[in-house]
């Protein structure tokens, strides 16, 4: 990672640098979100966007928001769980995009590793899981699986996006 790059928290007055996530449906959607909606989400306190940029381009961005995973109160008592929580705190990566010229260069994995370490070592509130709203495209799903994410539900198999999660305990216990 070049030292001339910066990872910034998006502010309303920040001038967005060019970003193009590619011509797939997911790519166009991610580009549109960054250019047209990331500041609105910030203004409405819905999601905060972090931007990795070089001198002339946006290399990648991700938008995060608070989340939780709720389990139904009807549970299978055969599965052991000492604490019996029904709600677990989580952080959701609502959008995560990498500029098309930088895709496949492990920048996404580097950013995810940073997020995982940040939320296990330097978080101000409890957070057990990272959730993502992933585009239901093979390359996207493969990327998240490579980064340790699993499907939250099998009911969204045919939808445009799929919810996946990463259990931060897998890092803490190592």
């Amino acid at each position, binding site marked *: *990672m070049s030292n001339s790059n910066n990872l910034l928290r998006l502010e309303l007055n920040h001038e967005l640098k060019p970003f193009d996530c590619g011509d797939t449906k997911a790519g166009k959607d991610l580009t549109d979100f960054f250019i047209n909606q990331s500041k609105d989400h910030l203004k409405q306190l819905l999601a905060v966007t972090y931007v990795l940029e070089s001198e002339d381009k946006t290399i990648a961005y991700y938008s995060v928001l608070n989340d939780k995973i709720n389990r139904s109160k009807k549970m299978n008592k055969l599965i052991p769980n000492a604490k019996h929580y029904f709600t677990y705190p989580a952080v959701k990566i609502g959008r995560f995009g990498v500029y098309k010229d930088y895709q496949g260069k492990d920048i996404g994995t580097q950013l995810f*590793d940073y997020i995982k370490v*940040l939320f296990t070592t330097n978080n101000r509130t409890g957070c057990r899981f990272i959730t993502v709203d992933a585009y239901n495209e093979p390359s996207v799903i493969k990327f998240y699986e490579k980064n340790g994410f699993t499907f939250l539900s099998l009911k969204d198999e045919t939808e445009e*996006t799929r919810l996946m999660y990463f259990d931060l305990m897998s890092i803490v216990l190592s």
Partner: protein
Amino acid sequence: MMALPIKDTPVLTGKDADRFWKRAAECEAGLHKISDEERKKMIKNAAEIEKIVKFK
């Protein structure tokens, strides 16, 4: 085109809830922990990014 809204995380029910709960319990028992090599790589990657962070 208008970007899709960020999807809500639904309440897990039935087999989804069972699968989630089972995996969470396994994780608490250390069954899904990452290897030392993966951990080392993760910390190295995080440190690389940390160098270029420009926010508190």
